[in-house]
């Protein structure tokens, strides 16, 4: 339920910051951010395995018999788990926008308009005017100027013959481009632990919430990006970027060939003078309350991994890109018409694959460290579930666990039966 004073305070606080920020572009403003952990409706007790749950269920019924066997009540365990996941499950929660505790005057943050009186509606109206009338046009102008300048400068740097000079200038041009973008989004970024900033010849992994993560990270130092070749404006920007610094762009057909991808990444990373590669191992955008499964591809290469955790403060505007709901341009407009993009970036110390650890375990370890630093929930679900169905293997796993309990017993029962059959003959 919206608290009036909080909302109003935030609003004033915010407009003052924005004015100050545009006047002094080099002044770095630090904001104290609270971390929100994902809240669930259910109070879950410590999760027991299938076997333990079954034993509990049966022990009350079959106190006289030591061996478990099929009981009509076994269905209750599955039934309860099923209804619990209907009420609240981890995966849907991670792919829908976060919910706020108190309203931030953006109707997109809540399901329906809280009709709490004239004052609030007026304040909201004022907010809309400011956001769409003042903030949005300014931001769009800045963004367009920035991209225009970047494309021109980057292409001209590409014509320079001397590679060292080209590299140096290229980096400067890139940084300038990213800084323009950051200003145009009014992003307040706090970088923690800058001593762990990724070094050349390594791979940087981060959690993915929005395509703008790239801009947020690249604001601090230059990375080599990995991605598909696009057409149109984005394609133009990609081609301009490649002229002045090395990036890895794939044709659509090449993406399917995993070995080719891995080889190109390896080649790039092996050269210790090249910029670190920026990879988002989740593979898709997640809503910044949790971290989904990391795909093992980038962890197989064998370089040093620098994990980076990004956490957005969603009070000022939700940064999550729900790609099934709206496209990229709509998403950018949403961000540009929010109050701001406030985030924290933590650079974690570098990690290497240990002896006897395979890529999957290494990925899990990196993920756990990243989730712990940013205060996000560490989930084992695959980010691809946003679009695809769960594989039947999960259901089969549950069936297998249950059948193990029954079958162990069934063997002993069968033996008992055989034994009983034999005794009458001996009689």
């Amino acid at each position: 339920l919206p608290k009036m004073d909080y909302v109003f305070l935030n609003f004033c606080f915010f407009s003052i910051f924005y004015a100050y920020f545009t006047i002094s572009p080099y002044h770095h403003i630090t904001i104290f951010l609270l971390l929100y952990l994902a809240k669930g409706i259910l109070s879950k007790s410590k999760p027991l395995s299938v076997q333990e749950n079954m034993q509990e269920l049966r022990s009350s019924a079959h106190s006289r018999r030591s061996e478990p066997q099929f009981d009509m009540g076994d269905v209750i365990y599955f039934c309860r788990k099923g209804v619990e996941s209907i009420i609240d499950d981890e995966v849907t929660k991670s792919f829908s926008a976060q919910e706020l505790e108190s309203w931030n005057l953006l109707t997109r943050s809540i399901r329906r308009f809280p009709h709490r009186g004239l004052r609030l509606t007026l304040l909201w109206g004022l907010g809309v005017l400011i956001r769409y009338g003042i903030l949005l046009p300014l931001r769009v102008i800045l963004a367009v100027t920035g991209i225009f300048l970047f494309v021109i400068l980057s292409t001209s740097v590409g014509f320079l013959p001397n590679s060292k000079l080209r590299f140096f200038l290229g980096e400067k041009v890139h940084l300038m481009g990213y800084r323009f973008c950051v200003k145009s989004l009014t992003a307040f970024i706090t970088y923690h632990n800058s001593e762990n900033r990724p070094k050349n010849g390594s791979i940087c992994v981060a959690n993915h919430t929005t395509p703008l993560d790239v801009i947020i990270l690249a604001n601090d130092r230059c990375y080599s990006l990995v991605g598909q070749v696009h057409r149109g404006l984005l394609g133009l920007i990609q081609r301009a970027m490649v002229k002045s610094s090395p990036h890895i762009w794939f044709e659509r057909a090449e993406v399917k060939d995993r070995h080719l991808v891995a080889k190109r990444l390896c080649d790039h990373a092996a050269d210790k003078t090249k910029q670190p590669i920026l990879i988002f191992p989740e593979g898709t955008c997640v809503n910044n309350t949790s971290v989904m499964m990391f795909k093992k591809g980038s962890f197989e290469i064998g370089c040093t991994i620098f994990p980076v955790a990004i956490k957005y403060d969603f009070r000022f505007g939700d940064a999550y890109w729900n790609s099934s709901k709206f496209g990229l341009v709509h998403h950018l407009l949403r961000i540009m018409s929010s109050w701001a993009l406030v985030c924290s970036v933590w650079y974690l110390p570098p990690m290497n694959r240990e002896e006897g650890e395979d890529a999957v375990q290494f990925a899990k370890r990196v993920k756990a460290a990243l989730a712990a630093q940013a205060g996000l929930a560490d989930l084992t679900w695959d980010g691809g579930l946003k679009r695809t169905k769960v594989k039947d293997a999960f259901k089969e796993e549950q069936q297998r666990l249950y059948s193990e309990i029954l079958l162990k017993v069934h063997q002993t029962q069968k033996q008992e039966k055989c034994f009983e059959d034999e005794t009458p003959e001996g009689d």
Partner: protein
Amino acid sequence: LSFLECSWRFCGRFKALWMKAALPDFKIRELTENPIGGRIIAAFFPPEKERLDFPSFVRILAHFRPIGKNRSRDRAQPEQANSRTGKLKFAFELYDQDRDGKISREELLQVLRAMLGLQVTEEQLRSIAERAIQEADLDGDGAISFDEFKKSLEKVDMEHKMNIRFLK
């Protein structure tokens, strides 16, 4: 959490169950890994109906509330959903899909097949079903009625097993 916010969230969840036609293509991922996920969804829909409205949804979820303390005025009311009998009836209906009041051998086999999948052979499945029916069937008609079901589960602590605590 206030009641209002809780019902907002319920509305969102219940959108996921909206069409019965969504059955083969679950939108709730964790439900897909549940062996009897399809039956649980079917249990929400009253027979012959293709759509679920919010009061019916809440009525079904009421089965999972903890059993309340006895109040004198409740004695006049019919069986409550969250009483022991109400919970047992819900579990019974998971087996008894055709709602004829009895769990036949075929229905029991279907549930067992869902819970065990391909992990056991057909023969083992039949023998488990046979044994279960022999144990529970008291009047010898080859099917399990609701009273026989109740009797076979009399020692199970339904208050805790079929109980989901909403809200902290």
